[in-house]
């Protein structure tokens, strides 16, 4: 089922939660809504589910106007972060719920429902748990039951709100693979919300990055990491280092920086900000280098290098501990930096969009 969201806005009191969302999702696609808390991703999901209503905008699914349709009539499967299983019903009754509440005329017979539940229990690999109550299950098992309950009604669209958020890391990885399998097997259109980049990139066909009620960027991992559409996306993708540079004819220059690896950018001359991920930066020992190594920490595979600049604490960069460059680094060494990759944005008032990357009015650089 293709889903088209057009110019959707929503506010809670004075807070704008969605500020004009346009999004098209193809039939059979698996899409992740990725963003920090408060970015509006869950609200968008709930509007598609019919659990919230937008203030303005359109929502069309397979040509039908879903804003005219109550949640009960949308036939969606919704999976909640904290499972929302009915505690007084057994696993079987939970899974069968969506079938047993249908109007008498449409309700399948008891034998049909039983067979369907058996099939789902088998499919979800929880066959022995049918007679248990939700509180007697582990988190991972509960989430499987919750998905089974959603799948039982053969949903046109499957929506998952931080489905693995409450689970520990190992179970989460396990369920991720499994969910991808479920999606491929059922062929449903699936949207899930997450704040975990790794989860979004590993699982989804396309990732929609949201921030403060807007869609910041849509793409897959490499596109979003290598070419963030805005400083927001760059920061959200882990570019914790921000350095002021000067652009001349598309080339960036900055004190103590070897930027020869960065491609030329079609940005106007003037002040700009370079966004770097700690892993994309190599410290190069240089006499009178701009930074001084003040601390080295090893995590076994990575070496974390803490830098300071003229006595003020700066930032840290990561490199593989066994990399040749790592050998020359000791506390007190002066270094310059050679980034392998980075994102450049002209220094403008960031949030005053629409012109985000391409500058209109350069402001003062934010450091001397």
């Amino acid at each position: 089922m293709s889903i088209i969201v057009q110019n959707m806005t929503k506010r809670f009191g004075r807070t704008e939660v969605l500020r004009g969302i346009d999004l098209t999702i193809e039939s059979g696609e698996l899409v992740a809504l990725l963003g920090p808390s408060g970015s509006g991703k869950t609200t968008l999901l709930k509007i598609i589910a019919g659990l919230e209503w937008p203030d303005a905008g359109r929502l069309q699914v397979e040509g039908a106007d879903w804003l005219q349709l109550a949640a009960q009539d949308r036939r969606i499967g919704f999976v909640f972060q904290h499972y929302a299983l009915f505690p007084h019903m057994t696993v079987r009754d939970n899974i069968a719920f969506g079938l047993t509440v249908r109007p008498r005329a449409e309700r399948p017979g008891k034998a049909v429902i039983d067979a369907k539940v058996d099939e789902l229990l088998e499919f979800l690999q929880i066959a022995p748990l049918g007679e248990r109550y939700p509180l007697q299950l582990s988190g991972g098992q509960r989430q499987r039951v919750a998905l089974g309950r959603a799948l039982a009604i053969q949903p046109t669209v499957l929506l998952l709100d931080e489905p693995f958020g409450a689970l520990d890391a190992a179970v989460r990885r396990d369920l991720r693979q499994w969910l991808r399998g479920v999606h491929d097997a059922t062929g449903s259109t699936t949207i899930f919300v997450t704040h975990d980049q790794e989860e979004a990139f590993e699982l989804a066909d396309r990732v929609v990055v949201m921030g403060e009620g807007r869609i910041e960027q849509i793409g897959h991992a490499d596109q979003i990491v290598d070419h963030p559409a805005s400083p927001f996306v760059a920061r959200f993708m882990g570019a914790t280092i921000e350095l002021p540079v000067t652009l001349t004819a598309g080339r960036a220059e900055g004190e103590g920086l070897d930027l020869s690896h960065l491609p030329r950018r079609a940005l106007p001359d003037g002040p700009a900000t370079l966004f770097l991920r700690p892993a994309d930066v190599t410290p190069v020992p240089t006499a009178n280098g701009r930074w001084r190594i003040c601390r080295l920490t090893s995590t076994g595979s990575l070496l974390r290098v803490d830098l300071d600049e003229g006595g003020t604490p700066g930032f840290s960069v990561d490199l593989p501990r066994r990399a040749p460059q790592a050998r020359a680094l000791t506390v007190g060494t002066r270094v310059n930096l050679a980034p392998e990759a980075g994102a450049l944005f002209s220094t403008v008032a960031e949030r005053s969009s629409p012109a985000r990357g391409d500058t209109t009015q350069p402001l003062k650089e934010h450091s001397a």
Partner: protein
Amino acid sequence: MTDVAAPIRRKRVLPGFTLSLGTTLLYLTLIILIPVLALVLKGAEIGPERFLRIITSPRTLAALKITVTAAAVATLFNALYGLLMAWVLVRYEFPGKRLLDALMDIPFALPTAVAGLALTALFSANGWFGSVLESAGISVVYTIWGIIIAMTFTSIPFVVRTVQPVLEDLDPTLEQAAVTLGARPWTIFTRIVFPAILPAFLAGSTIAFARSLGEFGAVVFIAGNKPNETEIASLLAFIRLEEYDYAGAAAIALVLLIMALTLLLISNLIQIWSARHREPR
């Protein structure tokens, strides 16, 4: 250096367990257990034959019947009304909600005799309600309806106050999940919400019933207290006491006690049953 390790004493996290439990038990024994025990012993003194004779006498039977009937009707009414009231107080926002919430406690705070007087004044033949009802041919004061109204008034808060917190704590995503699965509002109520509040609802209803069985102050003003017609059991016990018929009073009181305890037992069993899904495997 010595090799003998001192025995390890387990320390409780909270100090004062012995003292606080001791005080609690002593208090419970003095205030509740001994009086109840005294009543049972007093009843046992009478001997089974005399006991049966007392409680099967027409006047006692009539009093017990009236009491139980009125308490049952009052409880039924309060169970439904209390559920509705708790629902309204939890689920909707409206002006004056806090005031309404506070009003709920008035029957608890008001001396029951005051409640009885007020109700009698309202429902008597020339009172506000009474005059209207009287012209419609319904008399409340000095009938079983008066008893029911008095019992209803004094036990209103029980169901509201037990259901309200449970309803407040009910996870809203349960109902959202049911909606996405296609359930209509009434189905959601009967299959999701009601089972969740059932234990609290039963507990509240049971306490309301037990309270109504023993209600005295509010009832005696409005009931008229005609033997065999509008005389409640606790009043009859009081009358027996006035007549220095301790055995008669104790026998009636014992019956009330047994009824109340049986109710509590049943309610607890239902609560255990409805919490069965909480037990780990």
